[in-house]
């Protein structure tokens, strides 16, 4: 990876974090993903954010609902495979019109080494749309901050379910073999 690319990569992760801070997100549920690792570090280190590691992604949908009931804003970080785990729990979001802000790092769509990532990765956006989650995509680092900020606005001001898909091309293909 060229040095210039690495600098941009740091920037978009920090731009997302800045958007979460600006929106006063107080709980961040996550299932770790390599693409989210820097953002997870930033959230864990921030005293105003409660970072909550989850055993499975649908826990985060319920966590966000509970946070909202108590007057706090939450965001969820997951990989595209985790979207499949959320499907039934999204009925909670819809039935009660809870705000939802999912930040999804994509696998299985760009220079993917592992074919097992492709079935869910290639259906992530369609699955979310089918569940009435508004989907935004980020393909370039300079769009990340404003796209996440826009999704958070839609979620918390409109009581809507939103997901921002962070393209695998943005994150960079996982290096399995040198």
């Amino acid at each position, binding site marked *: 990876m060229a040095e210039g690319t690495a600098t941009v990569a740091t920037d978009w992760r920090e731009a997302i974090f800045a958007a979460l801070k600006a929106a006063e997100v107080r709980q961040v549920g996550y299932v770790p993903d390599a693409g989210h690792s820097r953002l997870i570090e930033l959230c864990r280190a921030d005293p105003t954010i409660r970072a909550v590691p989850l055993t499975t992604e649908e826990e985060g949908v319920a966590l966000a609902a*509970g946070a909202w009931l108590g007057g706090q804003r939450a965001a969820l970080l997951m990989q595209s495979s985790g979207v499949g785990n959320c499907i039934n729990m999204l009925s909670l979001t819809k039935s009660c019109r809870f705000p939802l802000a999912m930040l999804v790092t994509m696998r299985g769509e760009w220079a993917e080494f592992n074919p097992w990532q492709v079935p869910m990765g290639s259906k992530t956006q369609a699955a979310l749309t089918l569940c009435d989650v508004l989907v935004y995509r980020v393909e370039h680092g300079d769009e990340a901050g404003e796209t996440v900020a826009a999704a958070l606005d839609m979620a918390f001001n409109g009581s809507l379910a939103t997901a921002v898909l962070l393209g695998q091309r943005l994150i960079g293909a996982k290096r399995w073999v040198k």
Partner: protein
Amino acid sequence: MSALPPDRGNDPRLERRAAIRALLADRRDLLLVTGLGSTTYDAASVGDDPGNFYLWGAMGGAAMIGLGLALARPERRVLVVTGDGEMLMGLGSLATVGVQAPPNLAIAVFDNGHYGETGMQPSHTAERVSLPGVARSCGIAAVFDIADEAALRDFAGRLQSARETLFARVAIRADEPPRVLPSRDGVFLKHRFRHALAVE
């Protein structure tokens, strides 16, 4: 005719409506989340309350809603009452709760070893799965296995003063008292709850 279990006339386990009354007898401003099915009806049987958030779906999500709420409102006490089937679907959430360890959260599982809503099929807890064992292994500090009214009253007393996450398995009879149905309107329940907390 729904499939009632065999005569439980000598069954020493608690009756579920008596159990929920004991839990909520001195609730004060306790916030309550109930799992879909019987525990939602149980809570409604005691009387509706703006601080009740009833689930009618989202199976496996009750404990996590309680966690998000407890983290958001550290000054308030939060109780989750759910059934064994609902808890089994979200067992991983006990690990997540164990890690966060909010001191203001209590989870009480009404365990009749059956899926009451769907025809009384036996659940895993009717075989050899121990929910208190799972909760302990998940690092939840204070775990209770409750089988009589005195122990339940003791647990209810701790709800107002505990300084660590509480988990109780409450052994109840597999019976089906008449249903008491609260509102099924999730948007209404959400707004009512947030208004009661003055966060909206």
